Structures are given as structure tokens and as C-alpha cells.
């Protein structure tokens, strides 16, 4: 089935999840019965469905006795510094994601003025088109007679240091249901409330300072500092956090809801901090771990 949207998870008289109500691609309301419900909609979609799954037994949304479904939303504040070097770096070749990764400033050092830390990610320069297009956007590579000279200064002469911060949980950063806005099936839209913390702001500035030091030590003759990026770092995490205490977490160490014993979450919602790196591999590992745990504990999965 494709192009389906789940509206809510249903529960039976015993408080167990027994299916989902969804809309198919043509907008028809449908029902899928289930023995086990596994949420995999990540940090915004999962709490959106759980909060919309209200019943007399779960008036505040499903799996939400802690009141934490949707809360502690975390992202990854990201910034970078671009260094320009005199020598040719061959920097338009090779993988783009990250050439060198440093965790030197990953652990907490309270003398820095913030908790936790960040990854430094050294990335190569861009290919020809992106070099020219980004250079045009920044005003550094104009069109016209000076184009070639400016282009040759930047193409193959750039390396960047990215700073990816570990955002920490704060309950006021949250996903709720919008009281008015709905999607085309009438399902309430998620409403995102997020304010970047002072801790994350200090962390990012510290990282950008270190990035400049690294590039200067490496011989950069020109640096361009880009602070918090609006178009990056939107990894949606933390809104159904994992823990042993039902009062302070949503799912247990198996990824199973404390409240609904056949409801599992296997996405970025279960993160308790964001971790200072891209989360997909960790989400995949958690999903595999939860699936493996379910398989190993079939006999007492719902105990």
C-alpha cells in the first residue's frame, strides 16, 4: 500500500493497540488490524500520531502517561567555516559528506561554558557548478569579465570545517497538534515549537572558533564563517524518549511503550540526547536492536 496516511492508533478494552485508522491514496478511510504496532515516523510524525490517538483510556494521547510525548524535540544546530588556500587541493574530488571527523570537543568540559559538545567535520570543496553558483550567491564570484579570475581562486582551493552540535533535551521544545491546521485528509498538522538553547548557541560559537583555528593552522589565506544554517541540521529527535522510568520516559529499553505493551517506537523519537552527529545510522541500529529484542522475547513481549 502506498500514499497512505495513518490518522490514529486504536486500542481495545484491555488498553492494547489493536490497529490503525488510515487514509488511502484516494482519501478513503480504512482500518488495519494489528497484533503489534511499530511506530517509525521519526521525531515529528510519531508524536503527531500518538497525540492524535486519544480515547477515554488515553485522553492525552497514546503512550503519554508521562506527558512527554512530543516534548524534548531536538535538532542538530550546524554551522561551518570555509577556508581558501593558495595551493591546489584537488578538493572537487572525493566523497562530499565528511573527509575527516574529529571528536576532540565532543565530551563535556565545563570550562568551555556549555555541556556536551560537537563533531568537527572536515569536508571538501564543491564541484565546478556549485563553486560558481555558491560564489555568485555570496558575491565572491561575479558574472562578467572577472568571473574566470574569481572562479580560479575558489575552485579546487577550498576546504570547510563543519560544526554539528549535540542539542540537549528541553521540554519546551516540542511537537503538539495544531488546533486549526489540518492536512488534506483532515488529520491535525504537527505544530513545532523550538527555541535554540543558550547551551547550543555557546557550543556552536565555540566550534566555529576552533574551526577557524584549524583552518588558519592549515594555511588558509581567507576564511568565511557561516553561523547557524537555516537549511541544515533538521534531524527530528527526542519526542518519545527511551528510559527505565515510566514517569520520565515514553518507551523502555526495548523501545516498547511503558503504557501500551504492544506498541513500539523504532525511530529518532527515542533519542534522549541528539548525539553530535548525523543520526540515521544510530536510528537504523536502534530499529534492528528493537526488532531483534522483540524476536528474542516473543514469549514475554507483552508482560
Amino acid at each position, binding site marked *: 500500500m502506498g500514499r497512505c496516511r495513518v490518522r490514529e492508533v486504536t486500542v481495545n478494552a484491555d488498553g492494547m493497540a489493536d490497529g490503525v485508522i488510515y487514509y488511502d491514496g484516494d482519501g478513503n478511510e480504512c482500518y488495519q488490524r494489528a497484533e503489534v504496532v511499530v511506530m517509525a515516523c521519526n521525531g515529528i510524525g510519531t508524536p503527531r500520531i500518538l497525540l492524535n490517538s486519544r480515547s477515554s483510556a488515553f485522553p492525552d494521547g497514546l503512550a503519554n502517561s508521562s506527558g512527554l510525548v512530543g516534548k524534548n524535540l531536538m535538532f542538530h544546530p550546524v554551522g561551518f567555516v570555509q577556508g581558501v588556500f593558495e595551493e*591546489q587541493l584537488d578538493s*572537487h*574530488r*572525493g*566523497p562530499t559528506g565528511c573527509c575527516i571527523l574529529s*571528536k*576532540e570537543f*565532543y*565530551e563535556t568540559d565545563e570550562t568551555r561554558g556549555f555541556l556536551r559538545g560537537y563533531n568537527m567535520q572536515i569536508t571538501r570543496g564543491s*564541484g*565546478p*557548478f556549485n563553486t*560558481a*553558483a555558491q560564489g*555568485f550567491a555570496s558575491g565572491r564570484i561575479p*558574472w*562578467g*569579465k572577472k*568571473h*574566470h579570475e574569481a*572562479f*580560479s581562486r575558489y*575552485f*579546487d582551493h577550498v576546504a570547510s570545517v563543519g560544526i554539528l552540535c549535540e542539542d540537549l533535551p528541553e521540554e519546551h521544545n516540542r511537537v503538539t497538534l495544531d488546533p486549526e491546521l489540518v492536512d488534506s485528509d483532515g488529520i491535525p498538522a504537527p505544530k513545532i515549537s523550538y527555541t535554540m538553547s543558550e547551551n547550543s548557541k555557546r557550543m556552536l560559537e565555540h566550534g566555529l572558533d576552533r574551526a577557524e583555528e584549524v583552518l588558519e593552522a592549515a594555511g588558509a589565506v581567507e576564511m568565511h564563517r557561516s553561523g547557524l544554517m537555516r537549511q541544515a541540521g533538521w534531524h527530528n529527535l527526542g519526542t518519545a524518549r527511551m528510559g527505565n522510568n515510566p514517569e520520565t520516559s515514553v518507551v523502555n529499553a526495548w523501545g516498547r511503550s511503558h503504557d501500551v505493551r504492544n506498541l513500539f517506537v523504532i525511530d529518532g523519537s527515542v533519542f534522549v540526547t541528539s548525539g553530535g552527529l548525523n543520526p540515521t545510522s544510530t536510528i537504523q541500529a536502534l530499529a534492528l536492536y528493537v526488532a531483534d529484542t522483540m524476536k528474542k522475547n516473543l514469549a514475554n513481549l507483552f508482560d
Partner: protein
Amino acid sequence: MTNIIGTDHPLTAAQRDALNALLDTLIPPSDDGQMPGAGTQDLDAFLDNPTVTGFEQTVCTMLDALGTDFATVSPAEREARVSGYQGTSPESFNEVYLQTLAMYYRRPEVLQGIGSGEGPPFPRGNEVADGDLSLLDPVLRDPKVYRPT
């Protein structure tokens, strides 16, 4: 998709001349002759821009604004008119310029000229030079900065 039959092309011969003059104004040949200008015989490919709705019309509107004599005026006058258009219609200008860059920086002679070589640089076609891994020795001597799990 643009009709590839030249006689059905939406631009008149005069507009084609003006468009080539525009492209050569945006990216002129380099003074040392190493890099060509962005003017091209393959204007059909330039106009076939799937990322911008109504791109052909955007180009025609820009050419109209630049004047029917654009191809015959001096390079300085062309620059002045293009600058003026950029100021009054920045979004349309950006669409045309980005397409100019996209077409220009895929041409084999251009890639050759900037030292990139033809074709995508990764993953095939490039040998990775042996690195000096002894550079990592000071890093490896550093104490552990992460917690065991």
C-alpha cells in the same frame, strides 16, 4: 521538452544572436584564451531547463528587455544593460544565470580548461594518491577523549 527541430525553435535568428551575446556577456572568453565564453551553438539544450517552469519565456522576456540591438552594441553597453536587468528583475536574472553556469560547467572544453577533466570526478576515473599516514602519529598519541561504551 524543447522541440529539437531547428526550424520549430521558439527563438528567431535575431533572438538567438542576442542570446549568444548575452551568454558571452555573462561568461566571456578569458583574456588568455584558455577558457571559452558561454555562448554556444546548442541553444536548444540551454533552453531545455526542466528545473524552471516557463524558462523559455523567461529568456525571451529578458532578451526583450535587453533590446533588439543587444547583439550589436559594445561589450561595455551589454554589461550595463545586463546589470540594469539584474537590478530590476533579480529572480529572472538568477534563473538565466544559473542555467548559464549549469550548461557552461559541463562542457568538456571548459572542464578541461579548469583542470577537472571530462566526466564526473567520482567514483571512477581518478586515482587516489598515497597519503602520508605518519601525519596521524601525533593524533594517535593523544589520550583517549571519548567514553567507553
